[in-house]
C-alpha cells in the first residue's frame, strides 16, 4: 500500500513535468507568432533564430497597414439586387477609410456574430419542433439532418458556388454565413436540449391559453438557454476559424476575412514571415482575448454540447 502510494506520487510528478513541457510546446507557436510580428527582418531570416526579439520594431505592422485601404464598414443587403430597378445591390457604407487588414477584422466579426445569431435563433426553433411536435416527415427529416451532419462542406463546393452565383450572393459575406446557418449540427444539438423540456409544462401552458410563440419564448427558451449558449460558442469559433467556405465565396480585397487576408499575405509575400506574423497576430489576439475573458463559459459550453450531442 505504502509503496503503491509512493509509486503514484513519482508517477504523478513525472507526468506533471512532462505536461509542463508539453504545455510550453503547445504555447510556443503562439509565442512565435507574436514575437515574430515585432522582430526585424534580419532577425526573422536569421539561420540561428532569436528566441526573444533583441529589438522590438513595428515595421511589420506598418507594412501591414500600408497596404490597400477600404471603408470601415460596408454591407450589402442579401438578394437586394433582385428587387432594385437597376439590378444593383443595396449597400450601406459607414466609417472612415481604414487599412484593409482592419476591415478584414470587421468582416470576420460581423460574419461570426451574424452566423451565431442566425444559427441560434433558427436552430432553437427547429430543434424544439423536432423534439416536441409530431408531424409528417419528422423521421425522414431527422435522418436527413443526421446524415448531413457528418458531411464535409468541401464535398458540395462546386454546386454551392454555382448556386450562390445564381442568387447574386457570390463575393458577399452572406455566401459564407448562410451555409453555416444551414449546417444541421445546431438543430441536432437543440433537439437534444429541447427533449429535456417536460411535456407537462407545455401542456399546462397550452391549457392556460398561451399561443405557440408565447409558449416557446416563455417556457422553452429559458429551459434551453444553456444549450443556446453552447451552440453560440461553437458557431462563433467555427465560423471564425473556417477557411474553406471563405476561400471559395469571397474575392475582393475589401470583402475578405482575416483568415483569407493572412492567406493572401502569405501568397503575395511568401517568405516575409514578419509581415505574415503581424497579420496572424492581428487575427489571433482578439479571439484569444475573448476566449480568456469568457474561458469559464467556453469550457462549460463545450462540455455541455458534448453531453447532449
Amino acid at each position, binding site marked *: 500500500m505504502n509503496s503503491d502510494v509512493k509509486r503514484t506520487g513519482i508517477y504523478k510528478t513525472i507526468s506533471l513535468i512532462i505536461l509542463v513541457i508539453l504545455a510550453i510546446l503547445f504555447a510556443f*507557436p*503562439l509565442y512565435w507568432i507574436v514575437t515574430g510580428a515585432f522582430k526585424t527582418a534580419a532577425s526573422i531570416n536569421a539561420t540561428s*533564430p532569436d528566441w526573444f526579439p533583441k529589438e522590438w520594431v513595428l515595421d511589420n505592422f506598418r507594412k501591414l497597414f500600408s497596404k490597400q485601404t477600404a471603408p470601415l464598414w460596408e454591407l450589402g443587403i442579401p438578394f437586394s439586387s433582385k428587387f432594385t430597378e437597376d439590378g444593383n445591390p443595396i449597400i450601406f457604407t459607414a466609417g472612415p477609410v481604414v487599412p484593409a487588414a482592419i476591415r478584414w477584422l470587421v468582416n470576420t466579426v460581423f460574419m461570426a456574430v451574424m452566423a451565431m445569431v442566425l444559427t441560434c435563433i*433558427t436552430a432553437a426553433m427547429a430543434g424544439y419542433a423536432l423534439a416536441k411536435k409530431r408531424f409528417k416527415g419528422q423521421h425522414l427529416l431527422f435522418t436527413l439532418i443526421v446524415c448531413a451532419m457528418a458531411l464535409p462542406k468541401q464535398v458540395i463546393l*462546386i454546386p454551392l458556388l454555382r448556386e450562390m452565383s445564381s442568387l447574386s450572393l457570390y463575393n458577399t459575406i452572406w455566401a459564407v454565413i448562410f451555409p453555416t*446557418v444551414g449546417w444541421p449540427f445546431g438543430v441536432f444539438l437543440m433537439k437534444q436540449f429541447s427533449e429535456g423540456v417536460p411535456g407537462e409544462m407545455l401542456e399546462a401552458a397550452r391549457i392556460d391559453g398561451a399561443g405557440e410563440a408565447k409558449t416557446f419564448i416563455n417556457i422553452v427558451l429559458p429551459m434551453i438557454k444553456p444549450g443556446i449558449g453552447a451552440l453560440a460558442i461553437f458557431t462563433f469559433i467555427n465560423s471564425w476559424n473556417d477557411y474553406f467556405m471563405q476561400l471559395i465565396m469571397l474575392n475582393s480585397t475589401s470583402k475578405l476575412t482575416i483568415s483569407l487576408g493572412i492567406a493572401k499575405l502569405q501568397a503575395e509575400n511568401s517568405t516575409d514571415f514578419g509581415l505574415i506574423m503581424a497579420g496572424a497576430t492581428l487575427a489571433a489576439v482578439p479571439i484569444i482575448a475573448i476566449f480568456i475573458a469568457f474561458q469559464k463559459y467556453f469550457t462549460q459550453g463545450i462540455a455541455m454540447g458534448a453531453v447532449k450531442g
Partner: protein
Amino acid sequence: MARSSNLSSRSKVLVRRETRSAYLFLLPNMVFFIGFVVIPMILCIYTSFFDSTMGKDAKDIFIGFKNYAELWKDKIFLRSLKNTFVIVIVSVPAVCIFSLWVSAVIYKLKGPILSTFRCVFYLPVVTGSVAVTVVWKWMYNNYYGIFNYVGKGLGLIDKNINWLGDERFALWCIILILFTTSVGQPIVLYVSALGNVDTSLVEASEVDGATHFQQFWKIKWPLIMPTTLYILVITTINSFQCFALIQLLTSGGPNHSTDTVMYYIYYSAFKLYRYGYGNAMGVVLAIFIALLSALQFKLAKEK
C-alpha cells in the same frame, strides 16, 4: 372549443394545428438547410454523372458512371484517399489517447492551475487554423525554420531537412499540426467527464483494494465512454475536413504525398476544370464518411 365535434375530428384538427405550427417553427432553419445544404448535395450527385467543365460554350455531357469508373483508375485519387485515411487513422486515436492522458493528470489539480493547462491546450484551436498554419510553415522552413535549427543543435539531424518538401515527412508534419489543433476540445470534455465521475464509487473501490489502474479501467472508463464516443466522432469529422493546412502548406505536394480527397476535389475543380469529376469524388467521400458514421453510431447504440 368545439365541444360538439366528435373526438376523431377534434384530434384531426389538433394534429393539423400541431403539424402546421411544427412546420412554421422549422421553416426558418429549413430555408437555410434545404437551400444551402440539401440542394447543393442533390446537385452534386446530379453533376457527378456529367462531364462538366468551365467555359462559355461548355455543355455538360451526360456520361453515366464514367467519372466514378475513372476514379478507381486515377492513381492520384487513390493516393489521396489513402492519405485521407492515414490522417484519420493516425490522428483520431492519437488525439483520444493523448487528451485522455492529459485530462487524467490535470483534472484533480487546483482550479487556476487546471484552467491554465486547459487554456494552453485549447490555444491552438482559438488561434485559428490559418494563423497556426502560417507560423508552422515558418517553423518547418528548410533554410531558417526552427525545427532544423533545434534538430541540428541537439544533434538529432545532421543536415537540414526539407520538412514540407520531402515526401517522407510532409504528411507527418501535417498530421502533427492537425494534432495540436485537435486536442483542445477533447481535453475540455474529458476533464469535465472525469470530474463528474461519482467519487463514492471510486472510494468504495479503494476500500476494496483496487489499484489505480484497475480503478481507471473498471470504474472510470465505462463511465466516460459516451464522452469517448463523442470525441471519436468529432475528431473523425475534423480530420476528414482538414483542408486549410494542406492548401496553405503544401498544395498537396510533394508529388501528391499530402493530397487528401478534400484537397483533390478543389484541385480538380479549379486547376483541372473538371467539375463533374470533382463532384463524383465528393459523392464517394460522402459515402465513406456516412459508412464510418453509421458504424460509430452503431457502436454507440450497443453501449
